[in-house]
């Protein structure tokens, strides 16, 4: 076969190359910083590579604490969101009740606004009920983001489970709870896992709300990053960036199995 390199193909390859550079170079830069011992301008690559800064970071208790706290919050927020939202998602998928469509849309609304305005309002409310600077306050503020994921995606997932499969289970003698546990949930699990992963990641990344509600007592990784850049040497920022980005990349790669385009459009 004759493959001719046409001018059109060249241009297309050029555009893709630019995109790849634009996309990957900053991430690559961070990754390089994370394993740098010493990097002086004007050299293009660091003079010395090592993991020394990783050791240093994990020896600083005031830096380890945000890392630990970030993951603590992420797990707790994800678990609470799951417990609250899965039953709600099932209700949205199967039941009919007044104002159902409006309530469903309501879960999307918080993300339709600039979050900082929302968080400012939350702060005012929290001051009044003494929830500023509390653990549970930060959990609530992070849940604003996760609720959407944990309702929309599992609802579509539950809807994709054919009701006759549930009918068949009840028909042979399973109660509604047994049917949910043994038939509906296993079949909807891929979608639910997608929701859980997105919730986990959004909680890890959540900076603005946590900043407003959490400081000075609860500082998570993203919040710490704001001051990190000025107060600490470059490699420390690199280490933190890798710690923040790595879970996202790993989980999103894992997620590719579950993401199907018809999932999210099932509700309407």
């Amino acid at each position, binding site marked *: 076969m004759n493959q001719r390199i046409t001018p059109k193909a060249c241009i297309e390859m050029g555009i893709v190359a630019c995109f790849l550079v634009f996309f990957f170079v900053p991430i690559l830069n961070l990754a390089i910083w994370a394993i740098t011992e010493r990097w002086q301008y004007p050299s293009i690559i660091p003079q010395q590579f090592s993991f020394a800064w990783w050791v240093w970071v994990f020896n600083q208790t005031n830096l380890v604490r945000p890392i630990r706290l970030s993951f603590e919050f992420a797990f707790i927020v994800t678990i609470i969101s799951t417990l609250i939202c899965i039953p709600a998602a099932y209700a949205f998928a199967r039941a009919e009740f007044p104002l159902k469509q409006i309530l469903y849309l309501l879960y999307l609304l918080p993300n339709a606004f600039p979050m900082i305005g929302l968080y400012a309002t939350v702060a005012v409310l929290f001051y009044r009920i003494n929830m500023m600077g509390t653990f549970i306050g930060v959990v609530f503020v992070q849940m604003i983001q996760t609720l959407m994921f944990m309702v929309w995606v599992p609802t579509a997932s539950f809807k994709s489970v*054919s009701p*006759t*499969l549930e*009918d*068949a*289970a*009840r*028909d*042979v*003698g*399973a*109660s509604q709870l*047994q049917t949910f546990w*043994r*038939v509906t949930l*296993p*079949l909807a699990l891929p979608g639910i896992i997608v929701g859980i992963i997105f919730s986990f990641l959004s909680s890890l990344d959540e900076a603005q709300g946590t900043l407003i509600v959490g400081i000075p007592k609860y500082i998570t990784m993203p919040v710490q990053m704001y001051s990190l850049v000025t107060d600490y040497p470059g490699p420390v920022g690199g280490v933190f960036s890798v710690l923040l980005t790595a879970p996202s990349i790993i989980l999103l790669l894992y997620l590719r199995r579950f993401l199907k385009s018809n999932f999210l459009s099932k509700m309407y």
Partner: protein
Amino acid sequence: MPILQLVDLSKEFASGFRVHNINIDVQEGELIVLLGPSGCGKTTILRLVAGFIKPAGGDILIDGRSVISLPPEKRPTAMVFQNYSLWPHMTVYENLAFGLRLRKTPKREIDRQISGALEMVHLCDVTDRYPSQLSGGEQQRVALVRALLIRPRVLLLDEPFSSLDAKLRIQLREEIKSIQEATRTTMLFVTHDQEEAMYLGNTLVVMNQGAIEQAATPLETYDHPRNLFVARFLGEMNCFEFDENNRPLHYLLRDVAVRLPLVIGVRPEDVHLSRRPGPIYGEIQSKVPFGHYIRVVVNTNMGTVMAYYWRDSEGGDDSVISDNVTYVSFSQIHLFQEPLT
């Protein structure tokens, strides 16, 4: 006492579709077929008996006890669904064991029952496979076994063969019939296929638009249809509305006191073509062979008449349908006191 009784059952849906005046008695060991066009309410009745829908009025009694307050899982019924409804995330074994496990049956007993049941439907070596790895016919057999394993008082079948090809349908039909005769399971079978209904049913219940039109044995329903709907739904029927100007019709009904509205029906197999002169005659319009018979359409002085002309082994040039014009007579006619729609 009948094992299943539907007493004055009715249901109304928000769409306006309603099912009403449903009275059916099913004796133990019977196979009752609910037959009718799409949307006539037969699946609704099945779902009412199974417990997926709550009736608006009336009662459902199984073994003399009312079951309408019971949810599906507590009713002694089992359903075979149109689209098999096998749980795709479970193997065939797990699908079949599901109901038995819920009843805390010991594992050895479960194994024994499952292998016995699969043998009954001629399926081997499928227990470790997933439903998606089976063919349509195999899946439906598994669905049937799944329902039978929980020993229901009434087995409900919702057009179970409609998604299978013709040959498979006939084969499974025969299997169901022999299983029913062997196990004496009471069955309520829903279909829109009249051939299936005629083959399977001890009793045929013909339905239309939410109501029962006729309930009788298949042959009784075919030979003596109660109204025009049943006459035309089961088999073919030539229909002629009584018209004063139609002289041949007048001749046919010369001994009958005519009361309008009146429709005269003749089954194609009751139409006879011959060369012997008579009051009804016409030109042969078309002859379509259907295998063992030929469908002949004759344009008569009474109207268009469709006849089945049996092909015998001789055939030959003497065959009356090779003529242009033929004389038509009827061995049996049906009268319906309703307008032709």
